[in-house]
């Protein structure tokens, strides 16, 4: 009997331990994501005032000593009334989308090449992909300014070659933003794609080849469809941060490069309109989360179909 009791005790302790470990990330998310989100959401329901903090309080002392709650959806309505926000959202989506497509087009061959190279070289190549992370993101974007500016590296090189006789306007354009984004987010595309492609069973390609598929057909019929999960993961990892990107458009983009991150910054720090800025943030979040939830649900369905 006593043995069983001890066992139960142990498994109880183990269970507690397991729950505790699982709970850590949730507690972390609760403290540093959900709580700030609730605060931002609360601010988005307030009116801006000139005060410290610059918005109306959520709880008010009522006339009779009770507590009343003040909320308004004006900020959200405002977002829909002023076309600036709609255009900016759209432009952010467009910029992020195009940047993601380019990242995919450049990242896929790189990931493929790494996955197909022999083991020792593979690790070196992977290291090279990750190495830029060791330098501050801001610093790297600044150095792109040096490369792209009027008397920068690229223009200097093209002038030297004689291909142009006037420096090109590269910096402060959408092109510069694309270059910056593709450059910055490329590792986020390569790593999940690599993780997927390296698992691909080479015998499947041999089977395709044996059954009459040329190499490119084998790629289209086998490699590409089987790497779709990697493509989706990589695209999400690039698209999501790209859509809310602030630093790259602020440093490399022109005055007309409208991105939601910049609008948010301006509302917050220049206009000191915290409620509208908060509303912008909330809408952006919904815009991102809803498609992902839909996608996840679909993937879960696909997986459940697999049950024998």
């Amino acid at each position, binding site marked *: 009997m006593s043995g069983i009791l001890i066992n139960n005790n142990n498994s109880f302790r183990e269970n507690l331990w397991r729950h505790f470990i699982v709970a850590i990330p949730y507690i972390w998310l609760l403290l540093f994501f959900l709580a700030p989100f609730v605060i931002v959401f609360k601010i988005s329901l307030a009116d801006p005032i000139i005060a410290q903090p610059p918005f109306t309080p959520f709880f008010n002392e009522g006339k009779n000593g009770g507590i009343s709650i003040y909320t308004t959806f004006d900020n959200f309505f405002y977002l829909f009334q002023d076309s600036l926000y709609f255009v900016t959202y759209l432009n952010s989506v467009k910029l992020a989308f195009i940047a993601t497509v380019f990242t995919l087009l450049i990242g896929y061959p790189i990931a493929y090449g790494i996955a197909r190279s022999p083991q020792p070289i593979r690790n070196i190549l992977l290291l090279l992909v990750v190495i830029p992370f060791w330098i501050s993101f801001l610093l790297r974007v600044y150095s792109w300014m040096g490369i792209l500016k009027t008397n920068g590296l690229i223009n200097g090189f093209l002038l030297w070659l004689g291909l142009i006789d006037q420096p090109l306007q590269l910096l402060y354009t959408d092109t510069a933003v694309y270059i910056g984004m593709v450059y910055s987010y490329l590792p986020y595309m390569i790593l999940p794609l690599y993780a997927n492609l390296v698992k691909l*069973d080479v*015998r499947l390609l041999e089977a395709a*080849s*044996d059954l*009459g*598929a040329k190499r490119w057909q084998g790629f289209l019929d086998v490699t590409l469809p*089987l790497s779709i999960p990697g493509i989706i993961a990589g695209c999400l990892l690039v698209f999501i941060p790209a859509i809310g990107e602030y630093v790259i458009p602020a440093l490399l983009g022109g005055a007309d490069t409208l991105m939601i991150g910049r609008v948010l910054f301006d509302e917050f720090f220049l206009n000191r309109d915290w409620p509208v800025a908060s509303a912008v943030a909330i809408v952006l979040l919904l815009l991102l989360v809803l498609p992902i939830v839909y996608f996840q649900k679909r993937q879960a369905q696909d997986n459940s179909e697999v049950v*024998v």
Partner: protein
Amino acid sequence: MTINEKNYIEIKGVSKNFGDVIAVDNVDLAIKKGELFSILGASGSGKTTLLRILAGLETPSQGSIMIDDMDMTTMAPYDRPVNIMFQNYALFPHMSVFDNIAYGLKKEGETKEIIEEKVQRMLSLVKLEGYDSRKPNQLSGGQSQRVALARSLIKEPKVLLLDEPMAALDKKLRQSTQFELMDIHDQLGITFVIVTHDQEEAMTLSDRIAIMEQGQFIQIGSPNLIYENPESKFVADFLGNINLLDADMIENDQNRILLKCKALGGQLSLSNAHDFNGSGQISVALRPEKIMIQKEFPSEEVKNYVKGVVEDFGYFGNLSIYRVRTESGEIIQVSKQNRDRAVQSIKWEDEVYLSWENKNLMLLGE
């Protein structure tokens, strides 16, 4: 099944090196049309490499390969009239059973109607009607194997290569599948080349077997020939159970062999039926099923016998296997068919007499 006398597959002087490792070492082989040919060998013997060379998945370092009078040596796999069934089937996991089987035809650019018809015919051949829309991960091991077989047969290749076709199946299923595979072979008349490490599988399936070791063929012949007339100790030991006993050649002329074998009780006089020309230290090989075991003293007619003690035995139902230590100290394995429903009469420590006929002795040099 008809086997033409003309060679259908001709492998001439084929070698394959991977760096310093010689996987296939100057191999010659001729296979007839419609033959069911097995390459039997332990892992690392080079058998799979040879199969992959036939499929075009590896290019030989040396030598040439002809199939039906066409030079295949450097032909790309997608151009060869050869298909392979991979060891773990390599089914396309994202395609349905139908699309897997249809793949080869689609690459040939066949019309939808023909594809539909041929796939359905193939599904019925491998007894998988109604499984068209399943995905590979919804299939059992046996079903996956059938899909792989159907996929590799759909293009009606001149030669079908099978890499360890049964290795992933459990024993019961393996036996029934072996017979089905032979059926399919007989129905289609396609030349099969099977690579396997399982000697039982090779024996059951094949018209001929090639035994491969260290990149070379050691012996090629029908299962019966290889089993009863192995040319070397390695082959004798590799195929089935055998007693390999040391002996000294005393006299060897064209008609008669006189040798001394301690384990078999001293001098043996044999007629030289197989032109054996070894001398000095040789081995006498005797299969366990060709030895009689009994407790009673052998009758007058029995000339060759030796006395021993049962050291161990295994009861397998249909037969029992005894390990008997002879008077000279060697262990001899004997198997006995359990023909009667009787209680096992020979037990541990029993004194027994082992007898054999001299014609069943095989003489093997080093």
